[in-house]
C-alpha cells in the first residue's frame, strides 16, 4: 500500500521547493550531491504525475504505475507481497521448483532464490547438468527487473511439460533465479510509488531509491520514512560491493550518501552474500551464465577478463539473445582486462570465467520510447504499466534462448537407416554415455545398403533443434536463422569419386511425434529428423564400400554440432571443453559430425568393410553473429573475428 505523506509534511516540503531550480542540492565535479541534508535539498519531495509539471510535480506523460495486488501477471507491476506469494506458489505447486532462503536483508527480511529443473543433477543423457543464474531487483527503483525475472520463472514453469524446448531446459539445465535481491529497497520504492526526494536530476529515496537500506553511521537499517531527511541518502550500492574491482577509482564512492557508495568493505552487505548463496544452488562450479537484470538502456554490459575465448563466447551469446528481442538492444563490453568496479557481473566473469553481464532492460532512452517525457533522464525507471506484459515476454524470450545456448551445443546421438521396402533396419547406431565426460558409439546393426534401394534415414540429437508455432509448423526462434531447413546431410562414399556422394537434406522433415525411429523424435519434440532417399542403381559398387554420413546442423541458437560426440562437451577455464571444431580440435564454434558409418555393397549379406573418414572438403565458416542492431557500443569482437577469419581459409578432414 502506498504510504501517503502527511498534509503538513507535504506543505512544508512544497514550500521548500518553490520551483525546479529551488531544490538547492549542490553537486561536485563528479555529480555527487555535496549538501544532502541541507534545507532545500534533502527535504524536498517530488511527485510523479501523468501530466502536471507544476511546482514539485514531475510529469511523465503517462500515469505512474502503482503496485498491483495480484499473484498472476497483469498489465502492470505487482507489489512485492504478491510477487513473493507467486514465487512461493510456484515452489509449492511444482516438483520442478526448489527454493530456499539464501539470506536476509539489512532489515532482516528473507531473500529467496529458486532453482528450476528436474530433481537430478544430470542431463537426460546422464552428464553433469549445467546451470545458469539470473539476479533481479538489485537496484530498488528498477521495477522492470523483478517483473521480468518473475515472468521468466512463470514461463519456464508453465511450459515445463511441453515435450520440447521447455521440457529440455527443465531436464538438462538448472536455472537459478533470485527475483528480488534488494528486498528492502524494492519495498521502499513500492511504498512511495509516486514520490521521490532531493533533486529532479538526481532523485534519491522513495520511488527512485537505488541502494539497500544500510545506514553507514549505525549499520542499522534506515527508517524508510521520506519525511525524516537524515537517512534518505544512505544505503550501499549492492552492485559496487563485490570484491572484484572493489574500490577502483571512478567506479564507486566512499561517501555513504553517494548513489554508488561501495560499502565499508567488500561483501559487507547481506544481500551480496545472499546472491553468493544463490550461486551455490547451481552449484557454482556448474554455472555457465550469470545475468544481473537491471534497467534501463537496453544494453548487455559485459566485463571482459583477459580470456579471448570467454569474451568471444560472451559476445556471440549476447548477440544471439539480442537478435531474439523485439527491441534494439546492444552489446557493450568493458575494455579487455579491465578489472571492473565491484559489480556482480565483474565477480562472476572473473572468478568463475563464465559469460556475465549487467543486463539493462528497456527502455533504451526513457519514457519517450512510449510516448512519454524525458523527465530529467529518469523516466526510464518508470515503465508504463501497459508495457509490462510485452516487456516480460521480450526479456523471457532473450533469456530462454541464452539458456538453451549455454545448455551446450548439439550433438548427433543416434542414427538409423531402414529399408523402406522390407522395413528392415540396415544401420542403427547410438552414442551412449560411458563416463562422466564421454560417450561410446554402439552400433546395433550394420548391414549393406544396396544400389537402387529405397531407404529412410533418421537422425537424432541431444536437444530439440527446432520449435513450432501454434499451427504446428516449424518456425525460427525469434530473430534466429531459417527454421525449417535441416542443413547438411551428405551420404559420402569416400573411396568412390566425389560425384557419387548423395546430398540428402532437401527432403528431410523434423519430427514432433514421440516414438523414436523411424518416424518419431528421440526425447524431445524436434530433436530428430527423417528423410527418404534412394541409392542410385548405377552407384559403381563392386564390393562392400564404406559410406559416411556427414551432418552439418545448427540448433535453434545457431550453435553447430559437436564434431566428436565421443567426448561430451562441458565448460571449463572460461570456454567450452571438448567442443570439437571443424578441425576436429577443441574450440568454441563446433563443426560437422561424421561418426555414423554405414556401407553399401552390390548384394545383401556382405560384411561391413573398414570404416572410412568423411571426404576432405572445403568448409564454410560458421555464421558470424549478426551486427548489433542498436548501433554504437559493441566491443571490437576481435577474438571471434580472428577465429572466423582463420577458419574460413582452412580445409578439414573429419576423423
Amino acid at each position, binding site marked *: 500500500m502506498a504510504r501517503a505523506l502527511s498534509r503538513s509534511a507535504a506543505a512544508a516540503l512544497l514550500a521548500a521547493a518553490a520551483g*525546479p*531550480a529551488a531544490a538547492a*542540492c*549542490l*553537486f*561536485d*565535479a563528479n*555529480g555527487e550531491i555535496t549538501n544532502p541534508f541541507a534545507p532545500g535539498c534533502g527535504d524536498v519531495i517530488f511527485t510523479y504525475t501523468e*501530466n502536471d509539471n*507544476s511546482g514539485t510535480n514531475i*510529469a511523465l*506523460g503517462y500515469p505512474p504505475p502503482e503496485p*498491483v*495486488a*495480484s*499473484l*498472476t501477471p*497483469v*498489465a*502492470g507491476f505487482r507489489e512485492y*507481497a504478491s510477487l513473493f*506469494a507467486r514465487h*512461493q*506458489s510456484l*515452489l*509449492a*505447486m511444482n*516438483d520442478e521448483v526448489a527454493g*530456499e532462503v539464501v539470506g536476509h536483508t539489512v532489515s532482516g527480511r528473507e531473500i529467496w532464490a529458486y532453482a528450476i529443473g528436474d530433481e537430478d543433477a544430470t542431463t537426460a543423457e546422464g552428464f553433469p547438468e549445467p546451470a545458469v543464474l539470473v539476479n533481479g531487483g538489485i*537496484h530498488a527503483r528498477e521495477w522492470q527487473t523483478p517483473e521480468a525475472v518473475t515472468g521468466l520463472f512463470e514461463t519456464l514453469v508453465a511450459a515445463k511439460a511441453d515435450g520440447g524446448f521447455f521440457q529440455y531446459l527443465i531436464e538438462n539445465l538448472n536455472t537459478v533465479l533470485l527475483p528480488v535481491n534488494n528486498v528492502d529497497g524494492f519495498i521502499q520504492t513500492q511504498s512511495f510509488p509516486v514520490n521521490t526526494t532531493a533533486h529532479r*536530476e*538526481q532523485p534519491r529515496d522513495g520511488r527512485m531509491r*537505488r541502494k539497500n537500506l544500510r545506514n553507514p553511521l549505525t549499520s542499522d537499517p534506515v527508517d524508510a520514512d521520506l519525511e525524516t531527511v537524515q537517512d534518505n541518502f544512505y544505503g550501499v550500492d549492492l*552492485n559496487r560491493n563485490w570484491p572484484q574491482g572493489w574500490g577502483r577509482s571512478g567506479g564507486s564512492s566512499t561517501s555513504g550518501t553517494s*548513489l*554508488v557508495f561501495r560499502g565499508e568493505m567488500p561483501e559487507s552487505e547481506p544481500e551480496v552474500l545472499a546472491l553468493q548463496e544463490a550461486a551455490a544452488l547451481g552449484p557454482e562450479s556448474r554455472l555457465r551464465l550469470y545475468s544481473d537484470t*537491471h534497467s*534501463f*538502456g537496453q*544494453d548487455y*554490459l559485459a566485463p571482459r577478463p583477459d580470456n579471448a575465448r570467454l569474451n568471444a563466447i560472451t559476445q556471440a551469446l549476447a548477440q544471439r539473445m539480442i537478435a531474439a528481442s523485439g527491441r534494439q538492444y546492444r552489446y*557493450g563490453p568493458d575494455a579487455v582486462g579491465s578489472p571492473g568496479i565491484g*559489480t556482480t557481473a565483474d565477480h562472476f566473469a572473473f572468478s568463475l570465467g563464465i559469460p556475465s553481464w*549487467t543486463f*539493462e532492460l528497456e527502455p533504451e*532512452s*526513457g*519514457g*519517450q520510447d512510449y*510516448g*512519454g*517525457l*524525458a523527465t*530529467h*533522464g*529518469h523516466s*526510464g525507471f518508470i515503465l508504463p*504499466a*501497459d508495457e509490462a506484459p510485452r516487456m516480460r515476454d521480450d526479456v523471457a524470450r532473450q533469456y530462454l534462448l541464452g539458456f538453451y545456448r549455454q545448455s551446450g551445443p548439439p550433438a548427433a546421438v543416434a542414427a538409423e537407416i531402414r529399408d523402406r521396402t522390407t522395413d528392415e533396419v540396415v544401420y542403427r547406431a547410438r552414442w551412449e554415455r560411458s563416463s562422466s565426460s564421454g560417450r561410446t558409439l554402439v552400433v546395433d546393426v550394420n548391414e549393406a545398403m544396396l544400389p537402387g534401394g529405397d531407404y529412410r534415414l533418421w537422425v537424432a540429437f541431444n536437444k530439440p533443434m527446432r520449435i513450432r508455432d501454434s499451427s504446428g509448423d516449424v518456425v525460427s526462434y525469434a530473430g534466429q536463422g531459417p527454421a525449417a531447413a535441416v542443413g547438411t546431410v551428405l551420404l559420402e562414399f569416400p573411396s568412390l569419386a566425389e560425384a557419387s556422394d548423395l546430398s540428402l537434406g532437401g527432403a528431410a522433415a523434423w519430427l514432433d511425434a514421440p516414438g523414436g525411429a523411424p518416424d518419431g523424435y528421440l526425447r524431445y519434440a524436434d530433436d530428430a529428423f527423417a528423410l527418404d532417399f534412394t541409392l542410385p542403381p548405377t552407384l559403381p559398387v563392386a564390393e562392400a564400400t564404406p559410406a559416411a554420413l556427414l551432418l552439418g546442423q545448427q540448433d535453434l541458437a545457431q550453435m553447430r554440432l559437436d564434431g566428436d560426440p565421443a567426448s561430451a562437451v562441458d565448460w571449463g577455464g572460461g570456454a567450452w571443453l571438448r567442443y570439437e571444431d571443424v578441425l576436429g580440435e577443441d574450440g568454441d564454434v563446433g563443426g560437422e559430425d561424421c561418426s555414423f558409418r554405414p556401407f553399401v555393397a552390390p548384394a545383401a549379406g556382405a560384411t561391413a568393410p573398414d570404416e572410412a573418414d568423411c571426404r576432405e572438403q572445403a568448409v564454410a565458416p560458421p555464421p558470424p553473429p549478426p551486427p548489433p542492431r542498436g548501433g554504437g*557500443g559493441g566491443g571490437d569482437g576481435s577474438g571471434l573475428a580472428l577465429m572466423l577469419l582463420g577458419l574460413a581459409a582452412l580445409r578439414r578432414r573429419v576423423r
Partner: protein
Amino acid sequence: MTGGTGRVFALVLACCLAAAAGAAPRVVDAGASSRALDNPAVSARDAELSALAGGGRADELAARLDVIAFDATLDGLAREYLIDRGLHRLATLPPTPAARATVMRLAKRKPVVYVRVDPDHGDRATPLYDTGATARFVLREWNRGHARDEAAQSLAAGDGTAIGRYASIAAMRGKSAQLKGIEDAFREAPARQLVAQRPALQASLADGERVGPLALVVAGRLADAELFGLVLQGADEGSALAAVTAAAHTLDSRTALGLLERASRREDIGSAALLAIGGLAAGDPEARYSLFAALEDPARAPSAAAALARLGDPGVSAELGQRLAAARSEESQRALVLALRLDPTPAARAELARFAESGKGSARLRRQVQQWLAP
C-alpha cells in the same frame, strides 16, 4: 508590440540565429545542469515565460519559445530547459493556431543535452530534456482537452455521441489522447449526466465495444454495481483490473463480494479479485468462506491461499489445519500448506508443525514444510 508583429520579429530573429544555435549533442552531469541554470538571464526568461502563461498569452509564449529555440546567446542546456518549461506551461493554455504551429515545429527537435542517470549504464547517456517529446506531449494534451470539451458538451446535451466516438476511436487505435479526453469529461461531469449515459454504456459493453474505461468511471461515480459487474466480466484487462479495487472500495461488502467472486474466475484478473476478497474477509465471514471454497479450485487455489494468509487470523489457521489433516490429494495439501506458509503468525506455524509431525503428504512436501519451519 502586437502579437502578430512580435511573431514576425521572432521568426526573423530565429532565422538569423539559427545557424549560430545549431546545437551538437553533449553530455552533462547534474552539477553542470544546476550551474547552467543558476544564471540571471535564464531566470529572467523563465520568469517571462511564467508571466505569459499566467496571463493566458499563448501566442506570445509560443513566440518566445520560437526565439529561445534558436537563441545562440543561451547555453544549450539552458535553452532546452527553457523550452521544456515553456512547453509544459503552454500545455495548460488553450491552443491557438500560432501556438500550435510553434509546438508542431518544436515537436521535430531532437534531444541535444544528455545526462548519465545511472552509473551502471556504461557510456549510455539519456536525454536530460527531450523537447521534441515534450512538444508532442503538448499536442496530445491539447487534443485531449479538445476531446474533453466536446464530450462535456455531448454529456450536457444528454446525447450518446461521446460513447459512440469513444468506441469508434478505441476500436481503431486502442489508446489515444482523445480517449483520455472523453474519460476526463466523464470523470468531471455531474452525476445526473452520467445516469443518462448508463443505457448507452450498457448496450455498448454488451456489444463488445471497448468502452471499459468509460464504464469504470461511471460505475465508480455512481457506485453502480451492475456496471461494475459488466466491467469485471467483459471489459479489457486494464479496466477490469482497476474495477477490482474500485468495486471493493465503492460497494458494500456483500455486493462487492458477489461481483469479485465472479471476477475471480476470469483468468487475467482472477488473482487480483481473490486478493480483494481477502480485503473484505477481515470483516465478512462470507468472504472467508468464499476463499476457502476457492482453495478447492486448482486454478484459484494459490491466490486464495495468499489472501487467507494475509488475514493472519488464528481462526483461519485452525480451519486450514483441519482441512489439511483431512485433505487427501497432494494438490489440496499443497494449496493448504501454501496458505499456512505465507502466514508468518505462530498459529500458522503451529499448524504446519502439526502437519509435519503427522507424516502425511509426499516426502517432498514434508521436506518443504520442515524447511519453512527451520529457525
